[in-house]
C-alpha cells in the first residue's frame, strides 16, 4: 500500500489580524505551519500504512523553507519527502499547481492512494485535490473523514455530507481529500523529531520530471488576481450603553421601531 500525501506550508491564518488603519493583513510574526487539513490527510495515510503495511510519501510545492513542513511530516510517520521547487512554478493558480503536482506524482512512480487536505487555509479553494485527480485520470472522493482498503483493492471512504456521512466505494488508485477527522493527528516524539531532521529531503525541479512548462507558473494560470483588499466594515454602528439594561433595550426598540425593522 503506497500512499502519497500532498502537503502545503501555510501561514497560521487564525493568527492573522487586520490593521484597520491601513486595511492590510498583519503577517509579521505569523508562524508557518503544515496546513491543518493536510495533517489530517497524513494521519489517515499513516494509519492505513500501520494497518496494511507500505509506505507514505509526502510531496510539497513551495520555496526552500517548506522543507520545515516536510520535516514535520517525516516526524509523524511519513517515510519519504519531496519538495517541488522551481522558479518556473511561481505564480501558479490552482489549475497550474495541480498540473505540476500531477506531473511530479506521475514521475515519482505508482501510488495506490493520493491524499490531500480538503483545502489549504490560506487559499481556501479546495480545488487542487480534484484537479490532480482529473489530470491523473483517477477517481476522487472529497470530504473524506476516514478510509480503508480491502484485500481486493477496494477503497471504502467515509465521506462527510451536509446531513451526516456516506460510505463511498471506489478502487485504487484513487485520490481522497480529507476534512477534519474524528481523531487528532499524532504528536511527534523528541526522538522522531531528531530522526526526521537527519532524513534528506529530495528537491525536485522541472528538470527532474516530465512536464509541459507552458502549463505551469503565471503563463499556465487561467485565473488572474485583479486586486485584493480587506473586507469592508460598516463603521456607522449605533452602539447603545445606557445606565441600565432596561434603558438600553428601550432605546434599541425605539430605534428599530423608527426604522420599521420590527
Amino acid at each position, binding site marked *: 500500500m503506497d500512499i502519497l500525501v500532498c502537503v502545503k506550508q501555510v501561514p497560521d491564518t487564525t493568527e492573522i489580524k487586520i490593521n484597520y488603519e491601513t486595511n492590510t493583513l498583519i503577517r509579521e510574526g505569523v508562524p508557518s505551519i503544515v496546513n491543518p487539513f493536510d495533517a489530517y490527510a497524513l494521519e489517515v495515510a499513516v494509519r492505513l500504512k500501520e494497518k496494511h503495511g507500505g509506505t507514505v510519501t509526502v510531496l510539497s510545492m513551495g520555496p526552500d523553507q517548506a522543507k520545515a513542513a516536510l520535516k514535520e511530516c517525516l516526524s509523524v510517520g511519513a517515510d519519504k519527502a519531496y519538495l517541488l521547487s522551481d522558479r518556473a512554478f511561481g505564480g501558479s493558480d490552482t489549475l497550474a499547481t495541480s498540473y505540476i503536482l500531477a506531473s511530479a506524482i506521475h514521475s515519482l512512480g505508482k501510488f495506490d492512494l493520493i491524499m490531500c487536505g480538503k483545502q489549504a487555509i490560506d487559499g481556501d479553494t479546495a480545488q487542487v485535490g480534484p484537479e490532480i485527480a482529473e489530470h491523473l485520470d483517477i477517481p476522487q472522493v472529497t470530504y473524506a473523514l476516514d478510509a480503508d482498503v480491502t484485500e481486493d483493492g477496494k477503497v471504502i471512504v467515509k465521506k462527510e455530507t451536509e446531513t451526516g456521512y456516506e460510505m*463511498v466505494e471506489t478502487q485504487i488508485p484513487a485520490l481522497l481529500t480529507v476534512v477534519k477527522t474524528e481523531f487528532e493527528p499524532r504528536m511527534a516524539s523528541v526522538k522522531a523529531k531528531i530522526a526526521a531532521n537527519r532524513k534528506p529531503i529530495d528537491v525536485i525541479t522541472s528538470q527532474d520530471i516530465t512536464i509541459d512548462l507552458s502549463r505551469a507558473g503565471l503563463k499556465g494560470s487561467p485565473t*488572474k488576481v485583479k486586486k485584493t483588499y480587506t*473586507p469592508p466594515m460598516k463603521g456607522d454602528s449605533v452602539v447603545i450603553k445606557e445606565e441600565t439594561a432596561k434603558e438600553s433595550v428601550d432605546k434599541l426598540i425605539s430605534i428599530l421601531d423608527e426604522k420599521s425593522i420590527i
Partner: protein
Amino acid sequence: MFEEYKNLWVYIESSNGVAANVGLELLNPTRALADSVNEKLVAIVIDSKDTEALAQTAIKYGADEVIVVEGEEYASYSTDAYTNVLNVLAEKYKPSAIFIGATNRGRDLGPRLAARVKTGLTADCTSLAMDNGNIVWTRPAFGGNLMANILCPEHRPQLGTVRPGVFKKAEPDEHRVGNIIKEDITTPLEMIRTKIVDIVTTVSSDVPNIEEAEILVSGGAGVGGPEGYGVLKELALAMGGSIAASRAAVDAGWIDHAYQVGQTGKTVGPKIYIACGISGAIQHVAGMSSADVIIAINKDPEANIFKVADYGIVGDLFEVVPILTEEIKKRR
C-alpha cells in the same frame, strides 16, 4: 476573441427532482449579469426524475432557457457522471461562464470540470460583477481576512462556485416562459468509478435550517454553556426565528455544528441577526455579514462585533436578552 462563447449557465443542483436553494439563488445575480451583456441565462438540470418541473422552476426564477439531461445514472450525484454531462454540454454549446453552488457537491464537481475543460475556476465566491465581458469573481481567502477579485480573461468558459446563502432568490414569476432543451447524454456505468453504498443521517431532523431563517439569535463564547441557549431560544421563539452559534460555542460542545455560522459553518442571510456574546472574529463575520440588520449584544465595548453591527447594546446578554424578549412579546 471569444465570439463563439455565449450565454451564462447556472447549474441547478437537485436531488430526487428537488432543487437545492443555491441554484435558484444564483439565477438572481446572474440574471442581471446576462442582461448587462445581452446574453441568455441558461439553467442546467441533471437528474433522474421530475426534470420538467425543475426546468419550469428555473424559468420562474429567471432562466431564459433550460438544458435538461435525464437518466437513471444521475439519480445520485457522482463526480464522474456529472462531470461528463457538463463537459459534453460545454463543448457543444460553448457557454461564456458556468456558475455552480459552492456546496459539497459543487466544490467536488467544479474543480474536476475545470481541469477537464482546462479553464480557470474561482471557488466559493461571495460577490459577482461583469467587467468588459469578463466575470469579476470576488472571494474570501486567508480565512476571510482577505477578499480577492479574480478574472479569467483568456479562457472560456469561465467557471466559479458561489457560496450558498449569499444571494437571495428572486420572487418567482409564475407567468415567465422559457425554452426547454432536452439533451440525451448517457454516461456508461463503467465510467462511474465511485459508488455510494450507505447514507447515514446524523443531523437530527428537528434542527432548523438556519440558512433559510429570517430571524437568527446567535450565541457565542459569552453564552457560557449549553444552558445559556435557553434565554436565546426564548427570544428566537418570540421573534419567530431560530437560534444559531459561533464556532467558539460549537467547539466547546455546547451546541451542534449544524447551528454554526461562519467560515467553517454556514453562511446565513436573515433579515435580522442578533449576535449575543459573540466577539465578531472575521471568520464568523464571513458567515453573517449579508444579514439585512445586525444587532450585537456584548459586555465588551471593544468587541469587533460592534464594528460589524448596525446596532449594538453594551451589556450582559443574560440581563439584556430577557428584557428584549419581554418587550418583543408585549408588541405581538
